[in-house]
């Protein structure tokens, strides 16, 4: 149980959000409205997806169309929540696609798919996709990623009816299962890239204690973005790489209590430079 305590918490939050959205939208209750693209939660708090707003802004900015104030306030609410506190925690605790990709990973582990194959793609390519989605939004004057986003298809589908949106979700699942380990979240998803950038200075971090570490490598094997764990066994401090999802899988698998949740230590960041 201790080994999956954060996993259970994450599934609880992810499913809880989806179920609340579904029930409240089905019965038109004001408590939770909308979906993860834009919503009004706890009756009054607006929230909107920063990437969607960025695309809407860029596609409408040419002709100077004004975006409704509620969506803009929602953007700032999200920027504060994730920019100050949780960073890319969105991916691990809220995004429903996380359940799909984690399931693909789980099957990969069980059936021991070969993961050693050398890949020529960079983990940074998700930032490229982010730029590409903004450029396409500008050129085509319509939010480009919103129209194909399998993440939206998934949560929108669960709340409002799936239809063939299930194909988008399945393709992500199959991509992660047969093509690239953590392929979608690690290499493609521009939404994850957005939250990474927003959370550059967010407070919640995973912290490493070098003195307790036995260099067993379990954390690096389980981590969906293993390049962020470059300090394991080398130095103590918080994981400052923006790609870290704060999913806490590393904390759970660590037998030596060398990893735990903590606060961004700004001192360490400066001294490193």
């Amino acid at each position, binding site marked *: 149980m201790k080994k999956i305590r954060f996993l259970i918490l994450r599934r609880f939050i992810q499913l809880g959000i989806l179920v609340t959205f579904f029930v409240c*939208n089905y019965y038109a209750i004001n408590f939770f409205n909308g979906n993860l693209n834009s919503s009004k939660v706890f009756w009054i708090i607006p929230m909107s997806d920063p990437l969607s707003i960025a695309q*809407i802004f860029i596609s409408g900015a040419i002709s100077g169309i004004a975006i409704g104030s509620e969506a803009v306030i929602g953007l700032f609410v999200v920027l504060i929540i994730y920019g100050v506190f949780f960073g890319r925690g969105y991916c691990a605790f809220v995004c429903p696609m996380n359940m799909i990709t984690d399931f693909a990973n789980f099957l990969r582990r069980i059936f021991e798919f070969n993961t050693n194959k050398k890949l020529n793609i960079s983990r940074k390519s998700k930032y490229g996709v982010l730029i590409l989605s903004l450029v396409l939004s500008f050129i085509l004057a319509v939010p480009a990623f919103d129209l194909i986003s399998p993440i939206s298809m998934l949560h*929108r589908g669960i*709340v409002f009816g799936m239809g063939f949106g299930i194909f988008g979700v399945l393709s992500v699942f199959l991509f992660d299962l047969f093509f690239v380990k953590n392929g979608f979240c690690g290499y493609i998803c521009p939404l994850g890239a957005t939250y990474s950038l927003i959370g550059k200075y967010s407070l919640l971090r995973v912290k490493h204690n070098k003195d307790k570490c036995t260099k067993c490598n379990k954390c690096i094997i389980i981590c969906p973005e293993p390049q962020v764990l470059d300090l394991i066994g080398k130095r103590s401090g918080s994981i400052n790489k923006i790609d870290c999802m704060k999913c806490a899988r590393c904390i759970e698998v660590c037998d030596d209590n060398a990893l735990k949740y903590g606060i961004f230590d700004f001192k360490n960041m400066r001294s490193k430079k």
Partner: protein
Amino acid sequence: MQEINKNRRNAILKTAQGIGIFAFSGLIWGAYVSKAKASSFSLRPPGAKEESEFLKLCIKCGRCVTFCPFDTLKLATPEDDVPTGTPYFTPRKIPCYMCVDVPCVPVCPTNALDEKLLNIVENDKEMMDIRNAKMGVAVVDIESCVAYWGIQCDACYRACPLIDEAIKLEYKQNDRTNKHSYLLPVVDSTKCTGCGLCEHACITKKAAIMVLPRDKALGSVDINYIKGWDKSDEARLNQTDKIAPKNSDDTNSVIDYLNSGDL
């Protein structure tokens, strides 16, 4: 020296490969998106901005769908002929019942559904009036409408919430029998809101009166034709000031060319 060249060569190749992959996926992505937004033949909720602006603003949150009490609105899924995730309705299944308080519009967070497009001023107060909605326009197919055959049917006329305004009955003698009359439904496109209650009520197998998007079904007249007998239509002439002449920067000379004697 040979080694360095090899490394540089690899680096350049890798960059080129990366750019190539991005260009490739960008082109496919762009092709899909531009196709998706072009194929839009969809009826939008009341108060929706003009289609291209609506597509720019809609954040696909589905709150208009949630607050529609009749389950009229749906969010498009990929198999629908509507850009994925945007709200639309199919009047033949469930029409818009034109709620007086228009619950779907004020909840829109991005103003893709704009209250201002529905507003009227009443008792010095701005308020929404659903009769200003322009969701689409009803079009009658006179070949399959049985009223045009001479059979009495006024289902659409009775169903219309703006009866005798948006749909009127035109009486005409039936020359075939010489003792009956036609009761022909005729749509006034300036009044019709496009709610689709007529399409819903139509008794034929596939509705003979159907709601189409206004930009697909209606034409528009340029200012070279003006109803001189209609004051409000003459107001369109003011647009000439905004149109720059093609060959000259001097707007007045173009407007007054008959008076100036330059001919």
